[in-house]
């Protein structure tokens, strides 16, 4: 088992966890905003939301992540870190946040579509009643519709979260030091353990995603709106 002592497996997976966490929080917020746009009464907002979701959702993730690094940073000079340009941690930190930005932009579309299906589970009568009471669109959405919609889509959102966890390996394309980068490093220097290395990395992801699925599955059952 000198593989585990030679390489910082835990450290690499910790980066994976951090990537997943920040991307998940960001994607949840961005996806909610997108869903709000797609059901809003303003045609322009609906149009923008629809075009954004359909364009970004259908773009390969590798392309988006490469775009954040080669397009936003290399070409346009966008910097997302507070570290100085000369700092050794400048590139790792900047790459990390560029990757998070890419994941939020991409995963937000899936959160949006899940949420929209949840909104459809709330009977139209409730929204109509809210309007009749004089609530504004934002109030109707925020107080009446979204809380019920969220409770209905915990299970699909768990699938999105699991997909996101595994998608973070794409960040290796721009050198974020997560599990997939470690895997290429291990294969480069210890190729005789090829299948063991695959096993270790796969096991790591199962350890991360399996409990997520089980836990959120249980939560979904508990909070589902009984109709």
């Amino acid at each position: 088992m000198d593989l585990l002592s030679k390489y910082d497996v835990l450290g690499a997976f910790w980066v994976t966890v951090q990537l997943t966490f920040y991307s998940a929080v960001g994607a949840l917020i961005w996806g909610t905003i997108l869903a709000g746009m797609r059901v809003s009464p303003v045609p322009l907002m609906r149009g923008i939301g629809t075009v954004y979701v359909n364009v970004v959702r259908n773009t390969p993730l590798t392309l988006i992540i490469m775009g954040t690094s080669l397009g936003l940073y290399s070409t346009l000079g966008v910097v997302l870190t507070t570290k100085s340009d000369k700092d050794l941690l400048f590139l790792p930190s900047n790459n990390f946040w560029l990757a998070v930005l890419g994941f939020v932009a991409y995963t937000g579309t899936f959160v949006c579509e899940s949420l929209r299906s949840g909104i459809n589970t709330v009977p139209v009568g409730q929204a109509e009643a809210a309007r009749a009471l004089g609530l504004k669109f934002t109030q109707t959405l925020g107080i009446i519709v979204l809380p019920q919609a969220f409770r209905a889509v915990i299970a699909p959102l768990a699938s999105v979260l699991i997909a996101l966890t595994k998608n973070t390996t794409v960040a290796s394309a721009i050198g974020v030091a997560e599990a997939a980068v470690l895997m290429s490093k291990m294969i480069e220097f210890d190729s005789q353990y090829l299948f063991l290395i695959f096993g270790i990395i796969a096991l790591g992801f199962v350890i991360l995603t399996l409990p997520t699925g089980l836990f959120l599955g249980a939560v979904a059952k508990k909070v589902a709106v009984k109709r």
Partner: protein
Amino acid sequence: MRFSKGLRIGAAAAALAVLAACGGGSGGGSGLEARAKSGKLVVGIKFDQPGMGLKTPTGYTGFDVDVAKYIAKELGLDESKIEWKEAPSAQRENLLEKGDVDMVTATYSITEDRKKKVLFAGPYLTPGQDLLVRANDTSINSPENLNGKKLCSVKGSTSAAKVNEKFGTQAGLQEYGGYSECLTGLESGAIDAISTDDSILAGYAAANPGKFRLIGKPFTKELIGVGLAKSDTKGRDAVNKALEKMMTSGAWKAALEKNLDKSGYKIPEPPQITEK
């Protein structure tokens, strides 16, 4: 569970067919020379390294390719009879051990670890780690100038980290999936230097004339050899003979000049054959 008779017969026939296919895979005897006599040679090369091994719409180019063609010619085989197969770094030993390829010329460094699994002939090139910078960037002339600069290499390789270790510099490290992404960053100024074997860097510099400059001060030395199956000592002697002839006849130098021209790469003296 019950299967119909037809299904069982079908399954048995399929199993037999698979067995037969496995048995017939390595026909024509073993060893490089025997394979060459049978009229076909499978050679593993890189498909994505300009100057060394590159797949183009019209065929394969690069120094590794030319070396393989020369060896085949010396074994009495026409180059059109060579079947080229991609040999990514991590799979080269595997391909040779399974007999999927007869010979590997894919910037294959001779190391003690690899010698346990495969047999090497050569070396036919001794590149060193070097730096590639923008042609108009005069601030970097040796690895010591890298303080506060940004250095790029591909993921899974430690060539960039090695520079910081060796020279005590504080260069920021960027890793990408491939060297072409590094080049994009180098061109736009987001990256200041790329570090890996000079033969690889020279290929990129030659492919983009006038844009990039090779420092030309290699600070490590590697031995690039021809990989063969572990038991094929006769094949190794034949390959060594071919390589020796290539180096003394001037074909070696001509091939290097053809593939790595216009890059600032200095054509070295041919190396001594050490794998005997």
